[in-house]
């Protein structure tokens, strides 16, 4: 068949046009064998651009389309859809990347133009040999797994469950609620965190579509989009929750006290404990590391006092397997440790607390019942300094990024402190005030004007203890004066980091993290809640530091992506997968060891060992093709003939 290929060159505004001479490209490519039409437009991805392609396919009876524009990761799908709408097989359309691979990285206009022409010719050669393909179809298991029971996980689970699909929610601690359950009041409306969160926690526990595994962790994940198999480790709680009614007698009688994680170390808990009174589910677990019986072999007091025989010291970790079609990762954050900040005492000073500790001091259910008292001596602090950007925005020593919520919660802390201690003096040290949410700037203004919070622009260089007071050394950079300030309590707005253990989890899920350990989205603007692995979505602070409104919005967005998937009958899978020329395959099995997706396996066909391809698992990475010693493995629309033609074209003169 004689090829009739159309080439469409995009200016991408000035992204391409400022470095590549579009006119010259069009002129050169028009003459190229097989090309019957070449045309340019400012924005090929826009409606007029797409319309142009559709019209030319029909008018010129094109058999192939090359769009010379950006990276295929951005718009390949867009243009293949355009091609399909015009009745041409979408796999007869390819992108020639003259932006990321050419205009963005070069300055010399002449050379860049020549390179762009080369790139386009190469892709024209590829399209000439492209087969017409049909996407593969994959069945979907319409159940979702949500990892993490903080506000992101809760919101995501509820959204999916309310749409009528089953959700497996896995939380590593014994109660859902996450860090939000620790907060006192929330900016910018000052509504109580418990009042808005606990009803949602109860809803999760009672929802007929949600199966909650608390005190559990992900052990292993296999499978692929639509068909994941998940092995979940149910950690031994040493309490039979089916018998326990939550009377609390065991907790009361337990002789061992440990610093409470929920109270951020400001109050003790017992070795058998429920993290906080509003916990869901409200069932205790035994902390094996601190339990007297597990440490010394003697005690068993909890067992003696339990009338229901719910204590089971011989319990072991259990495993369950679940099949799901989609996974939402909402593993949240932890606060960067004060021990990393030598100039603020590295955790030596009791009255230097972090933001979450101050939340507990403010909380009506906290260790001081909401009265603000210093951890060291229980006195009411008369002057409190709040320090922002501790560990954040410090690429040399700590974290390079902005932790996003500290400006706002410190304003809230100062405001709430002033409400509780009206004659107290709150002082905030800041670098910049970042109050970019709805109602946020007004909130900061209110802190300054109505609650008389003093804002000083300057980093704190040192904090030390002197005679029961804390001394802060800083500078007022607006007045140009050094500052030495004595105060009773210091609250540090510590950086927010990904939860520990996320690293291990991402390896099991085969999803990426960035340099700071946060989960990477598929595209920072256009695909913000998807991971690069199909079927795995991300939400909340696991992705980047964010406040509650943003977290909830992102969680709902992730659920809507899951629901978009569940709304389809089946999933389609890219057909550009590996295939095997069975006459050439010797059944050596090299491909099986090379395949990262378990897509290759050996079969006996007519008495001969053949390495076959499980097409649904194949991601078209090409490892097996490069590794096959017989050249029996090929990839659809990227076979040896095509690759050799493309290489020849790149290396040819002109």
């Amino acid at each position, binding site marked *: 068949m004689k090829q009739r290929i159309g080439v469409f060159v995009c200016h991408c505004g000035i992204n391409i046009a400022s470095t590549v001479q579009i006119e010259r490209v069009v002129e050169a490519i028009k003459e190229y064998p097989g090309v019957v039409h070449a045309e340019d437009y400012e924005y090929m991805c826009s409606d007029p651009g797409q319309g142009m392609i559709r019209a030319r396919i029909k008018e010129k009876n094109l058999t192939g389309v090359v769009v010379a524009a950006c990276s295929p990761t951005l718009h390949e799908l867009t243009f293949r859809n355009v091609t399909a709408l015009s009745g041409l097989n979408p796999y007869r359309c390819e992108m020639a990347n003259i932006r990321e691979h050419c205009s963005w990285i070069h300055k010399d206009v002449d050379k860049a133009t020549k390179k762009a022409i080369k790139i386009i010719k190469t892709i024209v050669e590829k399209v000439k040999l492209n087969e017409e393909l049909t996407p593969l179809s994959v069945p979907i298991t319409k159940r979702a797994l949500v990892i993490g029971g903080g506000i992101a996980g809760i919101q995501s689970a509820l959204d999916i469950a309310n749409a009528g699909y089953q959700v497996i929610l896995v939380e590593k601690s014994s109660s859902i609620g996450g860090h939000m359950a620790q907060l006192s009041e929330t900016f910018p409306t000052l509504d109580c965190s418990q009042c808005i969160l606990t009803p949602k926690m109860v809803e999760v526990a009672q929802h007929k579509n949600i199966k909650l595994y608390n005190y559990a962790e992900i052990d292993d994940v296999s499978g692929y989009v639509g068909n994941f198999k998940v092995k979940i480790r149910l950690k031994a709680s040493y309490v039979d929750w089916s018998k326990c009614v939550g009377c609390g007698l065991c907790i009361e009688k337990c002789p061992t006290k440990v610093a409470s994680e929920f109270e951020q170390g400001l109050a003790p808990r017992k070795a058998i404990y429920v993290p906080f009174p509003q916990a869901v589910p409200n069932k205790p677990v035994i902390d094996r590391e601190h339990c007297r019986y597990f440490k010394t072999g003697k005690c068993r007091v909890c067992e003696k006092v339990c009338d229901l025989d719910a204590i089971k010291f011989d319990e072991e970790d259990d495993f369950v397997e679940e099949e799901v079609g989609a996974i939402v990762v909402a593993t949240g954050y932890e606060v960067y440790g004060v021990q990393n*900040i*030598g*100039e603020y005492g*590295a955790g030596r000073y009791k009255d230097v607390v972090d933001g979450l500790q101050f939340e507990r001091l403010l909380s009506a259910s906290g260790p001081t019942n909401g009265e603000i008292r210093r951890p060291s001596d229980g006195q009411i602090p008369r002057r409190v300094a709040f320090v922002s950007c501790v560990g954040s925005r410090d690429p*040399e020593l700590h974290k390079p990024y902005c932790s996003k919520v500290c400006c706002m919660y410190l304003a809230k802390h100062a405001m709430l402190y002033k409400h509780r201690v009206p004659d107290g003096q709150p002082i905030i040290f800041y670098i910049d005030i970042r109050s970019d949410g709805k109602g946020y700037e007004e909130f900061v203004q209110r802190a300054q004007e109505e609650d008389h919070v003093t804002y000083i622009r300057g980093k704190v260089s*040192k904090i*030390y203890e*002197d*005679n029961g007071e804390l*001394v802060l*050394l800083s500078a007022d950079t607006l007045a140009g004066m050094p500052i030495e300030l004595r105060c009773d309590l210091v609250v540090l707005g510590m950086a927010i980091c990904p939860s520990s253990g996320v690293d291990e989890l991402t390896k099991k899920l085969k999803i990426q993290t960035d340099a700071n350990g946060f989960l990477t989205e598929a595209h920072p603007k256009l695909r913000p809640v998807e991971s690069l692995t199909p079927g795995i979505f991300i939400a909340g602070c696991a992705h980047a530091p964010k406040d509650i409104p943003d977290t909830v919005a992102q969680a709902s967005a992730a659920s809507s992506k899951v629901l978009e998937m569940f709304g389809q009958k089946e999933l389609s899978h890219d057909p550009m997968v590996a295939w095997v020329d069975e006459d050439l395959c010797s059944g050596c099995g090299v491909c099986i060891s090379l395949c990262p997706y378990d897509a290759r396996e050996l079969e006996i066909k007519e008495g001969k060992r053949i390495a076959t391809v499980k097409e649904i698992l194949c991601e078209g990475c090409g490892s097996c093709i490069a590794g096959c010693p017989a050249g029996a493995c090929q990839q659809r629309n990227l076979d040896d003939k095509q690759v050799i033609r493309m290489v020849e074209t790149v290396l040819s003169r002109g």
Partner: protein
Amino acid sequence: MKVLYYPGCTLKTSAKNFEDSAVASLKVLGVDLVELERWNCCGTVYSLASDDLMHKVAPIRNLIRVKEQSNGDDRVVTLCSMCYNTLKQANEFFKEDEESRDKINNFMDREIDYNGDVEVLHLLTLLKEEIGFDNIGKKVKNKLSNLKVASYYGCLLLRPQNSAIDNAENPTILEDLFTSLGIDTVDFPYKNECCGSYNTVNAVDLVVERTYKIINSARSFGANIIATSCPLCQFNLDRRQKDVKDKYYDFEEMPVVYFTQIMGRAFNVKRKSLGFDLNYIDPVPLLQENF
């Protein structure tokens, strides 16, 4: 053990007591500090301006002298914090910036080409890592039990990161040394705060304020003597106490010595080598046990 030693200008003049006490103490530890022949000015802080290669010539020339005299042991020990910092930073710069390295090497066409392979050590690092604080403890003859030493680091031992001999925010190397000598130490927050540095020339009052703060802070945390390794810090904290006293009549003076003077006293080296006559506030009454 013999090791090359770069003194610098101050150690031959107002800080002669630093040099003498170091040389005498190290002899006790079996270390011979061999003075570099034909050394020149370290370059002081001028060479730290990164955009001016001319000022790097002085420190690099010293390092070339080390190469010439080293017999394969390419190490040089410094005592003065500022010499240490200047030589160390110039050397680090030379290792990293190939283009500037070539330029300076071409400029100094009568010298051998240098590529940054001399190791610049501060005496404290040598004591800690080569000799070991445990071994130092074994040489103690005098228990200086009435001392409460506040270690003052200043800035040049700790910053920038590529030249720091210890954690910049919470250094302990001096305290560790004194502990091994059986001497009580106090931790005080101003141990790494600025002494005022060269402002002592044209903004005396600024330095007076710093000295007042630093010494009062050391005293409030229980110290009766301050130890340092920087001649400029020593000058500001010691000599400026006269001006502090003029300004604050209730100010109580405190001796400020080099750490080697205390170490020498603990080893019971000859009083002459400790050079206490160069200290402005007399430390002898505190150190006179068994003198």
